Structures are given as C-alpha cells and as structure tokens.
C-alpha cells in the first residue's frame, strides 16, 4: 500500500468507527464480549479447515471411539475424526447466516421504502403479500420449500432469505411512513428532488435505528433456522461436515460418545448468543431493547 492510500484508509476506518452499528456494538461490555466471541467463531470457521490435523471426511478409526491423544474429541458414527469435522463444520452455517440475511435486506429495504412512500395500491399489494407470507411459521415454510423444490444448502439459504424479507419489508415500510411526514422530507419534495434520491438521501438515513435494532434478530433467526434445517437433514447433506448435521448424525451415541455432539452444540449456541449480545447492545444504543428469537 502506498502513502497516497493511507488518508482514504484512515477516513474509511473513522467512518466505520462512527457508524451506528459499530458504536452501538461497542457501547456496552456485553456487546464487546459478543463481538469478541463472534470474531472467535469466524476465525474457527475460516481457519479451522486449514489447521485441521485430519481430513473431515476420512475414516481414521472405529466408530464412536472416545477422546484420545490423536483424536481429542474422539470419532463420529463412521469413525471420522470429530475435531476435524468440528473445525470444518462452521463455514456453511456462518456463510448462510450472513449471506441470506444480507440478501434479504438488499431485496426488502427498497421494497419497504417504496411501499411506505408510495402508499396506495403499491403499499396495499406489498403489505398484503408480506402479511400472507408471515402467516406461515418459518419452519413450515422451510419444510414446504424442501418438499417442493428440494433440500440442500442453496434452497435452504434462499428459503431463509424469503422468510426474512416480508418481516423486513413491514418494518421498513412502517419506519418510512413515520419519516415521510417530517419537514425535511417535505423540503426535499419542494426542492423537486427525484423520488429515488429522496428515499436514499432523506428517508433511508433516518430509518436506520429501527432497522439496526431489528438486524440482530434477523441474524439470530437465520442462524437458528439454518442450524435446525441441517439438523432435520434438509440443509447440508452428508458427507459434508456441518455443526447442525453433526448433532443429528451422532445423536444415537449420546450415551457413549457425547464428545462428538457437545462441541458443535456449544458452537451453535455461542454463535447465536454472541450475535444476540452484540445485537442487544446495538438495540439499546438506538433506544430499543427488545431482543427475541424471531419467528
């Protein structure tokens, strides 16, 4: 990196530090703890497969062997190294959690903004279809997608995005309705701003706080849904390593070899707990403090 780039980099870093999300996350001690735990899990998921001593799919011993020096977590139902599978198993969950949640925001924010600002038929149609989709419990929607379209990581990820979209649309629309009666919006209309500019420059920056307060709930809910779908056998497919799948594959050995189940179970719980700790700090910093698991 040349010297010329440094000021822009510094400015970018400063902007990150000033952003509502980061400031909020760092505003309480629990929020910082959440970020540290989340970082740790990302490191495990990304670096895990690289540093793993064994292959995640190679058979290295007897099925359900207990912990030993060579295999600290023992082996799984097929005699594969449990540690290697644990290290390789977090990537899909993290990628789907962040990927489908972000995809949902990319689709839902413009729709919600347009529905809240345009009113009339556009709003009615959008809210009608959002309410209709929300009438399904999320797991039911996932089961339907798996039955109709097929199982697998991609279908599960798209279905999870489809579950989050109507919930974000409703929130964005309500916040936009609120914001669009403010004087600064009327001033922009009087100035003759284009609608797209108006939504982007005047309304979007002013509806960030309810959206940020909800962001953590969406992330947690995506993580829980994908882990559950994998557990049911409709997400990650064998023989790939996945934390949710590891638990369901080895459930029969709960009594003899719990060490192949405890690490992935703890890691999934840690992921969602750390997201919630961070989300709670962000939500409190923007003046809202109700965190739930979303449905």
């Amino acid at each position, binding site marked *: 990196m040349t010297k010329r780039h440094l000021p822009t980099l510094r400015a970018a870093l400063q902007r990150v530090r000033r952003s509502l999300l980061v400031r909020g996350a760092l505003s309480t001690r629990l929020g910082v703890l959440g970020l540290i735990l989340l970082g740790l899990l990302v490191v495990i998921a990304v670096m895990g497969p690289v540093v793993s001593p064994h292959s995640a799919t190679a058979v290295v011993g007897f099925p359900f062997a207990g912990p030993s020096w060579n295999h600290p977590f023992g082996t799984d139902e097929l005699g594969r190294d449990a540690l290697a599978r644990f290290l390789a198993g977090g990537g899909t969950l993290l990628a789907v959690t962040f990927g489908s949640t972000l995809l949902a925001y990319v689709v839902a924010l413009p729709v919600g903004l347009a529905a809240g600002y345009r009113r009339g038929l556009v709003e009615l149609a959008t809210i009608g279809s959002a309410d209709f989709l929300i009438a399904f419990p999320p797991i039911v929607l996932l089961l339907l997608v798996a039955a109709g379209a097929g199982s697998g990581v991609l279908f599960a990820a798209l279905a999870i995005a489809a579950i989050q979209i109507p919930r974000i649309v409703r929130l964005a629309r309500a916040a936009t309705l609120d914001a669009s009666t403010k004087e600064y919006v009327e001033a922009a209309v009087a100035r003759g701003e284009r609608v797209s500019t108006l939504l982007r420059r005047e309304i979007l920056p002013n509806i960030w706080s309810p959206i940020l307060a909800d962001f953590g709930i969406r992330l947690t809910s995506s993580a829980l849904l994908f882990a559950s779908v994998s557990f049911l056998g409709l997400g990650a497919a064998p023989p790939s390593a996945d934390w949710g799948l590891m638990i369901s594959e080895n459930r029969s050995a709960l009594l003899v070899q719990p060490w192949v189940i405890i690490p992935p179970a703890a890691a*999934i719980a840690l992921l969602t*707990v750390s997201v919630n700790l961070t989300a709670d700090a962000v939500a409190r910093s923007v003046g809202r403090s109700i965190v739930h698991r979303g449905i």
Partner: protein
Amino acid sequence: MLRRILARLAVACATLFAVSALVFLGTEALPGDAATATLGREATPELLAQYRAQLGLNKPLLERYQSWLRGFLRGDLGKSAPNGEPVWKLISDKARNTAALAIATLILLLPLALALGILSALWRDRMFDHTIAITTLVLISSPEFVVGTLIAIALGVWLNILPPLSLIDANQPLTSQLQALVLPVLTLLAISVAQMTRMVRAILLDVLRSDFVQVATLKGASKWRILAHHALPNAAGPVLQVIAFTVGWLVGGIVIVENVFQFPGLGVAVTNAVLGGDLPTVEAVTMLMTAVYLGATLVADIGAILIDPRLRRRT
C-alpha cells in the same frame, strides 16, 4: 365492534385460502410427484404414466387443487403417497400426541412466563432482573435441538433419571406414559418461557412508564394496586399478541423438539414425509400447523378488540 370482529374473521379466512393455494401449488407444481415417490427407482415411463392416471396426477394442476381443497373442506386429507392409505388415518394418533405436548407446554408456560415477566419488570435492574435477563438471553439464543440435546445429556446421561428418547406405545393410553412427555416439554418450556418472559417484561415496563401510572403513583396508590388496576389491564392486549406469537414459535419448535427425542408426533411425521417425498402428508400437516397459528393470532386479535375499548370504538 361486531363489524371489526367480522372483518378480522374474513381476513383470516382469506389468508387460510391463500395459504392452501401456496401449500398445494408450491409442493405440486415442481417435478417429482407422488408417483415417483411411490415407485422409486424401479419406475419406467409406462409404469409412471399408468400410476399417474390412477392417482389423477395427469389432470391439470388447478383441477387437482380444486378437488384437493374440496376434500379438505369435507375433512378428507388425501391419500399418503407411498402406500395410498388415507393421510388422516396415518397422522391421527400423532396429532393426538403432538396436541398433548403442546397443551402441556402451554399450561405450564403461561403462569411461569407471566410471573417471571411481571416480577422482573417490578424489580427492574435488581439482581433478580439481571439474572433473568442473562439466563433468558442465552436460552432464546440457543437452537431447540441444542437445548434439547443438552437437557437429554444432563438428565439422561449424567443424572440418569430419564431415558433420552421419548418412545410412546401407540396401544397404551397416553396418560400411562407421561414420562415420555417430560423431556420434550422441558425443552419447549425452557425456550418459550425465556422468550415470553422478556416480552412480558418489556410490555409492562412500557405501561409502567406511561402518564396514567405516574399519576397513580403521585396520587399515592400502592405498588400492587397500580399493578392490578392500572398496569395489567393495559398490558393485556399486547400480552395476548405475545401468546399468539409464542404459539407460532411452538408450531415450528415442536417439529424440531420431536425430532430430538424421536417423539411420535406430527413433527417427526412431517419431517419423514418431506424426506420421503410423501407430498399429500406434507400438505396436510403443514396446512394443519399454519391453521393452528392463524387461529391463535385470530383469537388474540379478537381478544384484544374485546379487552381494549380504544379498539372497539373505531369501526
């Protein structure tokens, strides 16, 4: 008021109708039907065509949807794909088991969550409130199958009190096998109590911050009088919504928890139907589950209209 209730009922019926369309068309419109599921790998094109004609699968999609819907309205849930038995016969026992699980959970959940939520709102920022806040945050963050597995390890393996699976003998009455309900109910309770406690606390804190509670406090009313006469009646509407929300969670949560303990209910049945491509069973069970959730929100909304005079006035 009556008009509002009727309007709400109409919306619920319309939604249920739209739900049925999505359930049927979403599962049937794509390739892979009951005929391929039944015949499996041995299917030849001729056999498939013959079987489809027999099941009426070669008719246009909309026509099939109509006859499926008409059957549903008469209480005929269709025939299961692998063996052609009526779906209702296959799932009626399981529906009973799942209902027992859900009702047992709800009976224990409501008093527990209301008491914990009210107490932690009253004792805000004290030791009790903080303990509840952290415990519930951890519980609402954990997937159902992780909580269930950890409870099974703790009670079944380390303490050795209960078997880690809930096998129910279909020939025995459910009342004689209540121990099979313990682990699934505990798991569902752990998560739903945590979730509902947090929401009840938030609602109550909102009400306690309002002007009329301040006036009552300044007037010198006692803490319990304020709670009983001013705060709780105003919190009742939102709490009903929270209960409906919890039922919505329970419908999905039960699917996961039943799979953790291999509890013979609708959740395990629908998962196996999805894995086995038994579309008629998937359609029937998902319709049932969505209808239960819709019913719960409907009851909560009507309850809110009945309780809250502000909702009654505007017609």
